[in-house]
């Protein structure tokens, strides 16, 4: 029968990444190593590995190095790489996938962006307990937790200005049907969301 033997072998790290990325096939296998992504990336200069390099590492099965790289955390989701990729690889989506995997494997702590996920987590706390969020409250609380000094800076500097302008709240509004949202979210988690 005209079938490939791929199905036979155990899933590699590469396969895991592809499987954990939503939508249709992210085409990771098509990477030409041309560097358009690394060249386009606004925060590229600050990444430990360019996306291109990361893809080569994924193919090489360097799971730990990939998941402890700061690259996914420095992705600003501007999608330039995705628009320009000559092979139409869903690069940004893959970056999100790598963040999730890094958290799951606890490897993000290795990365120089170790507390990056902290911001996301703080953010989520708000969302899960209020149904809504707002950058500044998140920011302050996140900074209080991770870099208190910044928090002070914020409270006095920029944050203070925002407050004066009436653009800063201390708690977000809570949605009416919070229970419904909670039910949905816990069901989603139970459905093995963490992948």
């Amino acid at each position, binding site marked *: 029968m005209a079938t490939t033997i791929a199905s036979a072998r155990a899933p590699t790290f590469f396969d895991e990444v592809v499987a954990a990325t939503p939508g249709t096939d992210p085409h990771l296998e098509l990477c030409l190593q041309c560097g358009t992504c690394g060249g386009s990336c606004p925060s590229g200069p600050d990444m430990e590995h360019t996306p291109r390099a990361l893809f080569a590492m994924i193919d090489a099965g360097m799971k730990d190095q990939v998941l402890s790289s700061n690259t996914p955390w420095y992705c600003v989701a501007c999608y330039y790489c995705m628009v320009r990729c000559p092979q139409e690889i869903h690069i940004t989506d893959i970056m999100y996938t790598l963040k999730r995997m890094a958290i799951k494997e606890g490897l993000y702590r290795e990365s120089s962006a170790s507390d990056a996920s902290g911001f996301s987590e703080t953010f989520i706390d708000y969302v899960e307990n209020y149904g809504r969020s707002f950058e500044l409250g998140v920011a302050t609380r996140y900074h209080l937790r991770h870099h208190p000094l910044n928090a002070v800076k914020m409270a006095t500097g920029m944050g203070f200005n925002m407050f004066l302008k009436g653009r800063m709240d201390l708690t977000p509004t809570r949605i009416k049907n919070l229970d419904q949202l909670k039910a*949905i979210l816990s069901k989603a988690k139970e459905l093995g969301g963490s992948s």
Partner: protein
Amino acid sequence: MKYGYYPGCSLERNAIAYHQSAMAVAGPMGIEFDELDDWNCCGATEYISIDLLPAYALISRNLALAAQQELEGNGNQLVAPCSACFLNLKKADHYMAESPELSENVNSALAAGNLHYEPGTVSVRHLLDIVVDDVGFNAIAEKVTNPLYNLRIAPYYGCMIVRPGNMKSFDDQEYPTSLDELMSTLGAEVVDFPLKAHCCGGHMTQISESVALELIRRLLKNASDYDADMIVTVCPMCQLNLDAYQDAVNKKFGTNYNIPILYFTQMIGLAFGISPDDLGFGKEIVDAGPALAKIGAEPSPKAKEKRPSKEALPMPSMGEDG
């Protein structure tokens, strides 16, 4: 024209000016907004980084509600003024349609809240999209009573409104022009802003301020290199970063940029002769006053095309095909 309206968290507070001005100009443009009842946060760029399915469930609750509350006449069109919300909602719908498995999982999660969402039911659109495509430049031109003459505006789109590439976009993904055209319709001088679709730093302000400030600096520098009086945005996150962190940029790089950052809806309102107070002016941290004072009664004399020297080689024509 009637649309469902999804303000998103930012517009409740930090981007209240965006919300106010959007509401203020809706009427004159013949738009009616029906705010989605009990909407929840879209998860921004954060939730998806932690947990896939809950992230999609979170977003889809809004889509499900929108489909359910299908306010008659809005043809299930949901308008989001925030680019991040817009992208999240649109992408969730798109990927659920692409992957039945995802759709199935999301729906079994929604079921826990007695909700269901059929991908494709709601069409998610950005506020700018409906203004330029549904209302149209002509209709807007007719409403302009106080043209924004002499005001040099750098139109700033940011990222998420026209990207990513795997979904249909209402404007060019590399070099969009709809906001440019809108601003010149309002009588303003439009700067051909090279970084118009580059990144404002997004959440990097929290993760690595140094990285974020550099990204913001690039935009401010480029805008002032092109002597823009102000930058006009279509996204709360962009506005926040460029406005609230401008001070920090100046401190870090020893610059003294003083470029007000405003929402395109505020400019429309101004041109329509609506009072600044009703458009949320004054909420911006970098004061827009001085820039607005530049608005003249007469269009500035067109800096007439200085004809190229006879040695000069012809520029490529930028025809329709271009």
